[in-house]
């Protein structure tokens, strides 16, 4: 595989984490414009852990997940009872606050004679754990996709369980869920924290892939892209968001056919698709039909 292809596929994997994070909230009926904030929290926490304190990446990634979950929990606490647009705006505000906080953080320490750590708008350089551990790009690609496969497997298991049914019911009919004795607010907080952990993990890997992060990486563009990925890919299955990422990064960016026009093409695609398939290509109906067909053949 060429170096370029490795880069594209690694990116697809990394961005899929935040797309999945947005998807998890979407199927529970909440639209967050702020998952990029938790992605950023994960990136910064993991970067600080490995580059400044020499903690190995697996541990740092767990720390990043915990930090992402905690941040999402704190943001969710006062906002999850808000409806639709209000929740969307509140999460957007929270993520922008986090981004500005990244701009304000100057926290460095000497590592091998050089100052390392987040330096405000100058960003955070030298997150070189992967390089120093002698991990080749294709190995890192495998690490990213293995982690992603793990996350996807968990999604598939959850979606087939009663938990998954509850999740979808929450999105489709919260009143019904409430009448069945489900503690909607508490449940949603749990989902928000899980989505935060997922974004945090993605951020941790993202920081170590790029070795350099800056607050701008985690602006609203990333957040809405992740939403768009889930929405165009489809809300019927966990592979929907992946399809969305694949279309944008794989097809549009990766193929370089639309170089210079990619945003125009992607933006138009999203807008037009939302008119005809407001719940994406792989929406619930499509997935249902597909399952039905496969079931009949076997």
């Amino acid at each position, binding site marked *: 595989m060429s170096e370029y292809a490795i880069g594209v596929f690694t990116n697809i994997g990394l961005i899929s984490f935040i797309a999945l994070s947005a998807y998890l909230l979407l199927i529970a009926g909440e639209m967050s414009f702020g998952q990029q904030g938790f992605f950023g929290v994960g990136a910064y926490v993991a970067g600080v852990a490995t580059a400044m304190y020499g903690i190995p990446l697996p541990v740092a990634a767990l720390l990043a997940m915990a930090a992402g979950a905690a941040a999402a929990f704190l943001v969710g606490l006062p906002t999850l009872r808000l409806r639709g647009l209000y929740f969307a705006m509140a999460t957007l505000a929270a993520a922008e606050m986090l981004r500005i906080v990244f701009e*304000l953080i100057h926290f460095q320490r000497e590592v091998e004679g050089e100052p390392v750590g987040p330096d405000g708008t100058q960003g955070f350089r030298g997150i070189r754990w992967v390089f120093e551990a002698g991990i080749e790009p294709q190995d890192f690609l495998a690490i990213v996709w293995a982690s992603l496969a793990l996350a996807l497997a968990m999604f598939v298991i959850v979606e087939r369980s009663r938990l998954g049914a509850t999740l979808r019911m929450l999105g489709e009919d919260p009143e019904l869920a409430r009448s069945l004795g489900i503690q909607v607010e508490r449940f949603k907080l749990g989902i928000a924290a899980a989505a935060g952990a997922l974004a945090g993990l993605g951020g941790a890997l993202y920081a170590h892939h790029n070795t350099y992060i800056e607050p701008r990486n985690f602006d*609203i563009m990333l957040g809405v892209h992740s939403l768009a990925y889930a929405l165009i890919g489809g809300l019927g299955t966990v592979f929907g968001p992946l399809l969305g990422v694949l279309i944008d990064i794989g097809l549009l960016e990766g193929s370089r056919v639309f170089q210079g026009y990619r945003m125009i093409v992607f933006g138009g695609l999203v*807008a037009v698709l939302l008119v005809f398939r407001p719940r994406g290509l792989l929406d619930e109906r499509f997935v249902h039909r597909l399952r039905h067909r496969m079931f009949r053949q076997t």
Partner: protein
Amino acid sequence: MFFDLIQNTLDGLAMGSSYALLAVGFTLIFGVLRRVNLSYGPAIMFGGYCATWVHLNFQAGLLALAIITIAGAVLAGAYVERLCFAPHRQGSAIAAMVASFALWMQFEEAVTLVMPSHVYDFPAMYDGPPFEFGSLTLRMEALVMLACAVAISYGLHRVLSGSRFGLAVRAVIDSPVAAQLAGIDVPRVLLQVFLLASSIGGLAGYLIVSTHTQITPMLGMWSTLKGLLAMMIGGLGSLPGAVAGGLVLGVLEAHSQWFLGPQSRDLLAFLLLFGLLAVRPYGLWRASSAEAEA
């Protein structure tokens, strides 16, 4: 110290009047559609770049530039309405919001494709020195902005309370179904309101870029956020609230910038938005009601 406070307040009111104009446009759209148009600012930015392009390639007067900015914003607004809001009128507010963001990306890339160096000079409205009152200074642009904010708000108030179009707009805001039953062509009124709001936004955009004497693609996000924030402070869907919200936001920002610096100013603004949503989702002055559909 005392003069600093007054000077900051004056500067804040000037900036706040541009926020007020942005918020009035935002509020009009939110009021009739109950939808958030994220592309509101990018459409304004598009208008601003149209004017910049004309300015760079032809000799155009200030008035012509203002008109081109407004026309560009209206054109972009029409595109947004047709593609993002008309098709989702009965559907999901969230789908409309994401679609409007998708068009935002289009505007931003279209602008940078034609004008690749991002930052461009924009002719100032007025070259002379600022007015001085003792140790206080007031720029000409600030006065124009304030005058425009007052004139537009008053004019809009007159149109809404006294014209046939205004009657239709109020009816649609109050109850879209009843408005249809009364024989009002609701989709058409929505498009008209959208264009009106875009033109007010375009005017605000012109005033802002000619005050800053430069334009960057950031104007898009900036205008959307300021308009949204001022609207939230003022109470969703209330026009006098939007004006007040804009002024409050401007003064607050001027003081926090002075005391805390630009990053903390933005942090404070978002904190305010977040806090308002968490505590009083219907704005500072509105007790309750105004149920917004998801």
